[in-house]
C-alpha cells in the first residue's frame, strides 16, 4: 500500500515530529508500506532528524526491526509545483492536522481516483475530549468521483484513532526501568554520556520543554525539596521558548538563595541544552525522572514513558487549553482509584500550570512542584499502568492500518 503524507509546519516542530513518528510507527507495523512525506519546512525536519538534507527530493532510511526501510521526502519547493512530484499519487493521502494539499497534487490525485478509488485521511490533533469519539471515522463528503475522505481522530479514549506508540520507544521504556532502579541509573549513565551531559547516575534528572512560562515556583519548590532530602538534582533547560522564563527565574532564585542556602545551590545543577533530535530527546526523557512537556509529540512521549510530568497545553483563545487539560485528567482518572489524593494533586497542578491568557516568561506562576517530587515512585507506578493500557489498546498505527485494510474504497 502507498501512502502520501502532507505536512505543513505551522509553528515549532510538532507537526513534522508527529508525522515522522507516525511514519516510523506505521513501518514498524508493516515494512512493506511505501511512504512519501511532503513537508514545507525541511529545516524544522532537519532539527528533528539530522539526516534530512535541504533539497527537493531525498530518500531517508529508517531502521525498522533491524532492516533499513526507505521513505521518500519531498521538500517545500516541489510541493507547490506540478510535474514529477505529483506523478503516481498514493492510494491513501494523509493530510496531517488538516494541512492543505497543493492543488497540482490534488488534481493528479482526483484524476487517478476516477480509475482507481482513493482515500484521504484527515488526521486531527490529539485530544482526550469526548468529541474525539463522535468525529473519529466520520466521512467528510467530497465532490470528486472515486475519492472518499474521513476524519481520523487520535485520542486516549476508546473507539478513537488512539495514540502513536512507536515500538522502539516502548522497548526503551521497559529497558529504562523503574524510578531509582539500577536499570534507570545505568540507562541514564549511557544516555547522558552519549549526549555529553554532565549528569550523575544518582542525580534527580528533570527536563524543561514548554511554551513561555515563569519557572519561579519550580526553583523554589525544587530548592526546598533538595534542602529537605539532601538529594542532588540536574535540570536540563532546552533552547527555545521556555528558556527565557527558566533563566530569568533561575537568576532570581540564585540571587535570593545564594547567601543562605549554599548547600542547595551546590546540589542543584542547571544544564543548558541545544534542541535535541527526536531520538535523543526520547532517550533523555527516559533517562530522566520528571519532565515538563508541551503540545502533542513530547506530551505523548511523557505519557508513554510513565514518568511524572506536567503538560503545557497549546494556548487557545478563552482559555480553551483548560478544557483539553481537564479532558486528559478525566481520561487518566480511573487509574488513580486506589489513590485519589494523588489524582487530586496532579489535577490541581495541571490546571494551575495551564491557567493563562497569554504565554509569558515573567508572570505569576500558579502551579507547584513539591507534590510531584514527593510522590515520584507512586505516581510513576500509576502512570505506567496508564501507558500500558494505551500501548495495548490504543496503538494508532495499528488502528489506522486496520482501518485501511478494510474494504472501504
Amino acid at each position, binding site marked *: 500500500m502507498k501512502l502520501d503524507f502532507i505536512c505543513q509546519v*505551522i*509553528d515549532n516542530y510538532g507537526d513534522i515530529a508527529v508525522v515522522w513518528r507516525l511514519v516510523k510507527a506505521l513501518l514498524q507495523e508493516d515494512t512493506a508500506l511505501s511512504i512519501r512525506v511532503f513537508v514545507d519546512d525541511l529545516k524544522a525536519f532537519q532539527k528533528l532528524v539530522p539526516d534530512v538534507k535541504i533539497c527537493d527530493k531525498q530518500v531517508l532510511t529508517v531502521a525498522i526491526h533491524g532492516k533499513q526501510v526507505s521513505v521518500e521526502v519531498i521538500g517545500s519547493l516541489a510541493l507547490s509545483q506540478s510535474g514529477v512530484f505529483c506523478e503516481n499519487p498514493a492510494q491513501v493521502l494523509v493530510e496531517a*492536522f*488538516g494541512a492543505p494539499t497543493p492543488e497540482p497534487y490534488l488534481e493528479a490525485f482526483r484524476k487517478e481516483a476516477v480509475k482507481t478509488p482513493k482515500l484521504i485521511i*484527515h488526521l*486531527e*490533533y*490529539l*485530544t482526550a*475530549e469526548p*468529541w474525539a469519539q*463522535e*468525529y473519529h471515522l*466520520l*466521512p*467528510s*463528503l*467530497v*465532490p*470528486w*468521483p472515486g475519492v472518499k475522505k474521513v*476524519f481520523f481522530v487520535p485520542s486516549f479514549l476508546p473507539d478513537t484513532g488512539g495514540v502513536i506508540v512507536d515500538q522502539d520507544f516502548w522497548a526503551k521504556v521497559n529497558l529504562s526501568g523503574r524510578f531509582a532502579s539500577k536499570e534507570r541509573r545505568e540507562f541514564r549513565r549511557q544516555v547522558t554520556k552519549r549526549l555529553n551531559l554532565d549528569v550523575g547516575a544518582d542525580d534527580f534528572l528533570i527536563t524543561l520543554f514548554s511554551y513561555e512560562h515563569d519557572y519561579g515556583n519550580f526553583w523554589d519548590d525544587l530548592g526546598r525539596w533538595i534542602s529537605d532530602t539532601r538529594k542532588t538534582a540536574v535540570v536540563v533547560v532546552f533552547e527555545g521558548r521556555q528558556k527565557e522564563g527558566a533563566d530569568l527565574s533561575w537568576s532570581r532564585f540564585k540571587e535570593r538563595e545564594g547567601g543562605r542556602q549554599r548547600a542547595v545551590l551546590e546540589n542543584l545543577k542547571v544544564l543548558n541544552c541545544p534542541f535535541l533530535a527526536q531520538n535523543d530527546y526520547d532517550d533523555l526523557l527516559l533517562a530522566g525522572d520528571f519532565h515538563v512537556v508541551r503540545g*502533542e509529540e513530547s506530551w505523548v512521549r511523557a505519557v508513554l514513558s510513565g514518568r511524572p510530568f506536567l503538560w503545557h497545553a*497549546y494556548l*487557545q*483563545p478563552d482559555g*480553551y487549553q483548560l*478544557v483539553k487539560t481537564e479532558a486528559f485528567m478525566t481520561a487518566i482518572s480511573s487509574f488513580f482509584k486506589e489513590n485519589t489524593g494523588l489524582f487530586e494533586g496532579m489535577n490541581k497542578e495541571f490546571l494551575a500550570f495551564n491557567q493563562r491568557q497569554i504565554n509569558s516568561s515573567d508572570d505569576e506562576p500558579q502551579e507547584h512542584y513539591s507534590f510531584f517530587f514527593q510522590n515520584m515512585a507512586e505516581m510513576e507506578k500509576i502512570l505506567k499502568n496508564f501507558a500500558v493500557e494505551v500501548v495495548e489498546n490504543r496503538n494508532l498505527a495499528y488502528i489506522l492500518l486496520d482501518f485501511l485494510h478494510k474494504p472501504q474504497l
Partner: protein
Amino acid sequence: MITASELRVGDVFKNGNDVLVVQKLEGTKTGRNMSVTKLRVKNLLTGTTAEAAYRMSDTFEDITLDIKKMNFQYANGDTYNFMDNESYEQHEIEKEDLGDAPNFISEGMDVEIVFYEGKPVSVKLPILVEREVVYCEPGIKGDTSGRAMKPAKLDTGYEIMIPLFCDIGEWIRVDTRDGSYKERVKK
C-alpha cells in the same frame, strides 16, 4: 462558495451532483486554534441523511434558493404547518427536516422557509431567539456571575442550562446554532 464556518441550519449546498441541506451542525475546537464541524445533512435528491465532518475552512458550492418569510401556525404530530405571509398559502414540513428548529419556534412566530424546486425543505432561524422560561428551580438573587448554571425548560419544551439568577416567567435569548443560553431579556 461558502465555507463550513459560514454554514447554518437550513443552508443548502452542493457536493458534486448531490444537493444537501444542513439539518444540524455543531462545531468544536481542536488544536492550535483550529475548529471542525459536524453536520447532519439531508440529500434532497435521494432523501437520505448522513453525518459528516469538515474543517471550518472547507468550501462548498452554495445554491441560491427561494426563501420566503412564513408564519409558524401549528404542529400536528411530526408535521409542522407554516403559512406564507404574502399569499396565505399553507405548507407542511416534516419535523425531521427542521433540524433543531422545533426547540426554538412557537406558534405565530415568523421564520424563513427554504424552497428547493418548489418544495419547502428547511427552515432558517435567526441566530438569536427570545424564549420564556417555564420551569426551573427558584432563582438566586445576587448571583449575577452567570458562571453557575441550572437546568430549565423553555415554552417550546426545550431543556437548557441557564444561570442561577434566572427565574420562571423570565425571557432569555438563546443561540439557535448550539442551543445555548446567551442573556436575560427584560420584557
